[in-house]
């Protein structure tokens, strides 16, 4: 399946209007490209390709959370590429690789090919979340999906801040690819979960506004 800039952009515009199905289709299409992109990049920087899935999830999450920064008059793929590359550089910096190891790349490279691993893990998020203990479920939803801070998540879930950190492993230790529980959510499940939270976004005006419903989140 190849999806062009025009198709992806159509999906993005629909998802900004709050269409959950389009949002999910968009994230799925992008995650396949991101997977191929990160595997290639990690291999060429001498890193293990198994870390690619973490990066795919971070990028998908970033695309979801920062979708209000997409300017609808622009092309979509350069925007996606900028996020993907930003996440890659951030990852390499965190894991102490040299930035010089990232070869220059072309803007269309992020969209160059399609790869879909793990399609078999097609649990719906309800099932995924039901399997988790209630505290974990609430923490994961609050921190990973809704982008709340640790303190806000603690308030919502009625837990202490350290309780939230224990229950949402990524938040506890951003950047540790090997941290326990980082596989707790498969990419497809993440996409399904994100698509269950779609609200219309005013892409143009919300940049930098105080009342933006989306909040910055550290990975």
């Amino acid at each position, binding site marked *: 399946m190849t999806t062009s800039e025009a198709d992806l952009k159509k999906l993005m515009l629909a998802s900004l209007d709050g269409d959950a199905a389009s949002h999910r289709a968009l994230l799925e299409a992008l995650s396949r490209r991101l997977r191929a992109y990160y595997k290639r990049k990690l291999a060429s920087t001498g890193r293990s390709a198994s870390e690619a899935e973490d990066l795919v999830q971070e990028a998908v999450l970033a695309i979801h959370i920062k979708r209000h920064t997409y300017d609808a008059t622009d092309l979509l793929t350069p925007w996606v590429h900028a996020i993907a590359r930003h996440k890659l550089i951030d990852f390499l910096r965190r894991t102490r690789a040299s930035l010089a190891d990232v070869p220059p790349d072309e803007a269309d490279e992020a969209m160059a090919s399609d790869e879909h691993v793990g399609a078999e893990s097609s649990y719906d998020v309800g099932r995924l979340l039901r399997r988790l203990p209630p505290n974990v479920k609430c923490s994961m939803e609050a921190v990973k999906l809704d982008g709340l801070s640790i303190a806000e998540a603690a308030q919502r879930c009625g837990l202490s801040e350290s309780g939230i950190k224990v229950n949402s492993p990524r938040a506890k230790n951003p950047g540790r690819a090997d941290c326990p529980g980082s596989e707790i959510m498969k990419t497809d499940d993440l996409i399904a979960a994100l698509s269950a939270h779609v609200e219309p976004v005013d892409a143009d005006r919300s940049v*930098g506004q105080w009342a933006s419903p989306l909040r910055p989140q550290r990975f």
Partner: protein
Amino acid sequence: MGLALAAATVLTLDGILVGLGTRSDLTTGHAVVSVLLKIVFAVGIVVLASAYLMRLARPGGERRSSSGWAVLPFAGILLLAAISLGLAPSTHWAKMVMGDEWLECIISIPIIAIVPFTVVIAAVRTAAPTNLVRTGAFAGLVSGGISAMGYALHCTDDSLPFVAIWYGGTIVLCTLAGAMLGPRLLRW
């Protein structure tokens, strides 16, 4: 973002009026001209820098446009300063450059700039810059410009070389500070 810039400006001006007070001769003709000139310089910086900052706040924004325009106000004031030095006898140069309160100026502008910088960084954090050094630098430049705008109401040194060197220099300092802080403050 526009809202944040307005809030930063109002906060800064309030702070100046309450904390430092305006210069006592603000309403005289000579003062009005020089204050206006300094404000035009500062506003020029703020407008150009914030236009670019808004682009930088989006992923990939740094690839789309050139930041060279931000140099324009600095080039302008340096040119005017050079002309005014050229027209003045060289015995006046030291006085024109150093003014009466150059030390107060280089201390005040960066300190006042902390207020708008905080507001601007908070606003940029809700967006998604992908070049954090440059975004930080432009946040610093905008803040330095806003700070200079406010400080101009208080400062009584009116010579063009003074404005070019001490205002320009401290605003550049704010820009460098922003570039250093950007990667820490803007991570997402």
